C-alpha cells in the first residue's frame, strides 16, 4: 500500500476514533448508543495493530520471516505442524477466549462505562496484546517451550520454581472464583440448574457416540449436542413451573457448591473421552456462536447505554466490589485488558503450529485485540441495562435486602429509580423467582444478552429462553474450564509431590490420580465454599484476588520479556515490555497491600479478621456467624485469604528482583546471551548480519 494511501486511510480512522472517544467521554444527559463504543474500539484496534504491532515486530523483536519456526524444523504431522495462519488464528483465539472477559467488565460497570472502556482499550493495546505477542515470540524461538521453562532458562532455576508455584496458586484461585460464578448463577434457579445438570447426560451420550458409534465426527456430534441442549433449555422452563420438580431443582448455594466439588472430582478422574472432551466441543462451539450472536445483535439492535459514564462508586464504596478506581478497576478487568493466563497459552500449543515468524503479530497481538473486543461487548451488555436493575442484581443481600421493595428503596438512595413491580416483572420475564443479588457477573450478562438477542429473534416472549441460553453457555464453558483446570492442577501437584513421593509422579497410577485430584478439588473447593457463605457475596472479596493473581502472572511474563530483550542486546526497546510491567506491578502491589492492610473491613482481610476477633473476645456474634464456631471459621478464612495475597506479593516481588538482576547482568556482557534455538542452517550469513544490524 502506498505510503500516502496508508496515511490517508489511517488518518481517517484516527479521526473517527477520536470523535467516538470524545462522544463517549464527554456526553451528558441522554443515553448514548452503544455503537459509538464499538466504533471507537474498532478504530483503536485498527491503528494499534497497523502501527504498534508492526513496530513491535520489526524494531523491538526483530522478527525474521526467513527463520524457520519449530513447526517447520520439527514437523511431525502430530504436534509440530505448520498451520495456515487463519486456521491458527481461530485456534489461538478459541484457546485464549475464556469466561474472564465476560465477568470482569460486568463487575467494573459499577463505576460507570467510561473507566472500563478506557482500561480495556488502553490496557489491551499497550500491555495485554504486547504480552501475548512477546511470549509467543519468545516461545517460538525456543521450540515451543513453556513460560515456566523459559523463566528457568533465562532467569535462573529459583525464579523458575517460584513462577511455577505462583502458577499453581493462581490456578487454585481461578478455579474457585469461576466455580463461584456458576454457583451464584444457578442458586435458587430451578430452570438454570436443570439445564446445566442436563448437560451431563448429554455430554456422556456424546462421549459414547464419538467413542463407539462414529469416532472422530466432532462436528456431527456437536450439532446433535446443541439440539439436545436447546431442548434442555426449553424443558427447563417446564421443569421450573412444575410443582414437584421446580422445588426439587431449586438448590441453595451451599448445596450447589458441594455438588460442584463432587462433580469436579468425578469429571477429572474418569476418562476424558466420556465427559470432558464432549463438553469441550459443546462449550467451544457454543461460546464462539454466542460471541458472534452478541456482536451481530449489538450491530442490529444498536442498544443505548443506560449506565452513566462515571458513577460515584469510583470512590470505593460500591456494592459490587469494594475498592477505589485505582487500583481496583485495573484488577477487576483483567482478562479483557491484560491477562497473565494468556502467557501460558501463548507458550502452549500455538508456537508449535506457527508457520512463519511474520505471523506473530496477527496471532499474538491480533487475537488479544479480539478478546479485548469480547470484553467491550460484555461491558456493553451490562451497561445497556437500567442501572437500577444492574445494582439490584449485583448488590449483596446485606445491602439491598431480600425483596423487591427493599431493593428498589436501596438503589433509589444511590440515585437509580425503579419500582418493585418492575423488578419482579423482569424476574418473571427471564423465568426466575427473583433477580435480586444474583451477583457474579453471569446473570447480569445473561439479562443484557437476553435484551439484545430478543431484539433480533423472538421479542419479549423469548427473553426467558435467551436468558437461560446465556446462563447455559457461560456455565457450560466455566464448568469445562474448571474440570480441565482441575486436571492440569492435578498433574502439577503430582509433579511437585513426586519430588518427595516418587509414586505420585506416575500419571497412570489410579491412587496418585485420586489423591492429587482430591487435593486439588479440596483447595479450590475451600475457597468456593467460603465464597458462597460470605455475606458480601464472595465475588466481592474473591474476584480482586483473582485479578491480582492474573495481573501478577502478566507482570512475570512482561518481566521475562524485558530480560530477554536485554539479553538480546535490544535493551533500548525494552521499554515496550518494561513500562506495562511497571504499571502492572504498581496496580497489583497496591491492590495486594490494600487487600492485606486496608483499615476498611470491606477491603482489608486483616481488618475484617480483627473486627471478628474483637467481637468474639467480647462475647458477641456478628452476622453471618451464628455460633462461636462460625466466628472462628470466618477469622481463619480471613487469614487464609491474607496468606494467599501475601504469597502473590512475594512471588511478584521476587520476580522483580531476579528480573532486575538478570537485566543488569546482561547489560555488562557485550554480546547477546539469550538461550534460543539456533537459527537453522537455512539462514545465510547475510541474514545473520541483517539480524544483528537491526538490533
Amino acid at each position: 500500500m502506498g505510503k500516502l494511501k496508508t496515511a490517508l486511510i489511517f488518518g481517517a480512522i484516527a479521526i473517527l476514533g477520536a470523535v467516538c472517544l470524545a462522544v463517549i467521554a464527554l456526553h451528558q444527559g441522554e443515553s448514548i448508543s452503544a455503537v459509538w463504543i464499538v466504533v471507537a474500539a474498532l478504530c483503536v484496534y485498527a491503528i494499534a495493530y497497523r502501527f504498534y504491532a508492526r513496530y513491535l515486530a520489526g524494531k523491538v523483536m526483530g522478527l525474521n520471516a526467513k527463520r524457520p519456526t519449530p513447526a517447520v524444523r520439527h514437523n511431525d504431522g502430530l504436534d509440530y505442524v505448520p498451520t495456515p495462519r487463519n486456521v491458527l488464528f481461530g485456534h489461538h483465539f478459541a484457546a485464549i477466549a475464556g469466561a474472564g472477559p465476560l465477568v470482569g467488565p460486568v463487575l467494573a460497570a459499577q463505576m460507570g462505562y467510561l473507566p472500563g472502556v478506557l482500561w480495556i482499550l488502553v490496557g489491551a493495546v499497550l500491555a495485554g496484546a504486547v504480552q501475548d505477542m512477546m511470549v509467543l515470540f519468545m516461545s517460538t524461538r525456543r521450540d515451543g517451550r513453556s513460560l515456566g521453562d523459559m523463566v528457568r532458562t533465562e532467569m535462573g532455576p529459583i525464579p523458575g520454581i517460584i513462577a511455577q508455584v505462583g502458577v499453581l496458586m493462581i490456578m487454585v484461585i481461578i478455579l474457585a472464583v469461576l466455580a463461584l460464578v456458576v454457583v451464584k448463577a444457578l442458586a435458587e434457579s430451578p430452570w438454570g440448574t436443570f439445564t446445566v445438570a442436563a448437560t451431563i447426560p448429554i455430554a456422556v451420550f456424546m462421549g459414547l457416540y464419538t467413542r463407539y458409534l462414529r469416532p472422530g465426527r466432532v462436528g456431527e456430534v456437536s450439532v446433535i449436542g446443541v439440539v439436545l441442549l436447546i431442548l434442555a433449555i426449553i424443558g427447563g422452563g417446564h421443569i421450573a413451573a412444575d410443582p414437584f420438580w421446580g422445588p426439587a431443582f431449586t438448590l441453595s448455594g451451599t448445596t450447589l457448591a458441594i455438588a460442584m466439588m463432587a462433580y469436579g472430582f468425578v469429571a477429572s478422574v474418569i476418562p476424558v473421552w466420556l465427559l470432558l472432551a464432549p463438553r469441550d466441543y459443546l462449550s467451544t462451539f457454543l461460546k464462539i456462536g454466542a460471541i458472534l450472536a452478541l456482536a451481530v445483535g449489538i450491530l442490529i439492535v444498536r442498544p443505548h447505554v443506560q449506565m452513566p459514564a462515571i458513577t460515584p462508586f469510583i470512590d470505593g464504596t460500591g456494592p459490587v466490589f469494594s475498592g477505589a478506581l485505582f487500583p481496583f478497576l485495573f484488577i477487576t478487568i483483567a482478562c479483557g485488558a491484560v491477562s497473565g493466563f494468556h502467557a501460558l497459552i501463548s507458550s502452549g500449543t500455538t508456537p508449535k503450529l506457527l508457520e512463519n515468524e511474520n505471523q506473530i503479530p496477527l496471532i499474538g497481538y491480533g487475537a488479544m485485540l479480539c478478546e479485548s473486543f469480547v470484553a467491550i461487548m460484555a461491558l456493553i451488555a451490562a451497561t445497556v441495562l437500567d442501572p437500577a436493575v444492574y445494582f439490584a442484581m449485583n448488590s449483596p443481600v446485606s445491602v439491598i435486602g431480600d425483596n423487591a421493595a427493599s431493593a428498589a428503596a436501596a438503589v433509589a438512595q444511590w440515585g437509580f429509580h425503579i419500582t418493585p413491580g418492575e423488578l419482579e416483572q423482569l424476574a418473571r420475564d427471564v423465568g426466575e423467582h427473583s433477580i435480586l443479588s444474583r451477583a457474579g457477573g453471569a446473570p447480569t450478562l445473561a439479562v443484557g444478552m437476553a435484551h439484545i438477542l430478543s431484539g433480533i429473534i423472538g421479542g419479549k416472549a423469548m427473553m426467558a429462553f435467551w436468558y437461560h441460553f446465556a446462563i447455559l453457555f457461560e456455565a457450560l464453558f466455566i464448568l469445562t474450564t474448571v474440570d480441565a483446570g482441575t486436571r492440569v492442577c492435578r498433574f502439577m501437584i503430582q509433579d511437585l509431590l513426586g519430588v518427595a513421593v516418587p509414586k505420585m509422579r506416575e500419571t497412570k497410577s489410579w491412587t496418585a490420580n485420586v489423591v492429587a485430584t482430591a487435593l486439588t478439588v479440596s483447595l479450590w473447593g475451600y475457597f468456593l465454599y467460603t465464597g458462597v457463605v460470605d455475606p458480601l457475596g464472595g465475588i466481592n472479596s474473591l474476584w480482586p484476588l483473582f485479578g491480582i493473581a492474573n495481573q501478577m502472572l502478566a507482570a512475570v511474563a512482561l518481566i521475562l520479556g524485558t530480560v530477554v530483550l536485554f539479553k538480546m542486546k535490544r535493551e533500548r526497546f525494552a521499554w515496550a515490555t518494561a513500562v506495562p510491567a511497571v504499571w502492572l506491578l504498581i496496580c497489583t502491589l497496591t491492590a495486594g497491600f490494600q487487600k492485606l492492610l486496608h483499615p476498611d473491613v470491606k477491603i482489608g482481610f486483616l481488618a475484617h479478621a480483627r473486627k471478628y476477633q474483637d467481637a468474639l473476645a467480647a462475647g458477641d456474634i456478628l452476622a453471618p456467624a451464628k455460633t462461636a464456631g462460625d466466628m472462628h471459621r470466618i477469622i481463619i478464612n480471613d487469614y487464609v485469604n491474607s496468606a494467599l495475597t501475601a504469597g502473590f506479593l512475594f512471588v511478584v516481588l521476587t520476580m522483580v528482583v531476579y528480573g532486575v538482576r538478570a537485566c543488569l547482568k546482561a547489560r555488562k556482557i557485550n554480546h547477546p546471551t539469550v538461550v534460543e534455538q539456533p537459527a537453522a542452517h537455512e539462514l545465510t550469513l547475510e541474514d545473520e548480519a541483517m539480524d544483528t544490524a537491526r538490533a
Partner: protein
Amino acid sequence: MRWGKDARRTASLMVGQPDYEVYVAHAEATHPEQPPLDRTAFFRLHEARRFGAGGAFRCC
C-alpha cells in the same frame, strides 16, 4: 471450496484436532514404510492429549 475447508480445519483445531490429511501426507513423505495412524487412533490420541498437563484450560 477453500473457505469451507479452512473453516472445518479451524473448528477442528479449536477442539484440539489437527488435520488428519496433513498428518497422513507428512507420514507418507517422511516414513513411507511405517503405516500412519488410522483416523480413529489419530482422533483418540489428540483427544487424550488435549486434557493432559498443558491443555484445554482457559480462564480468560
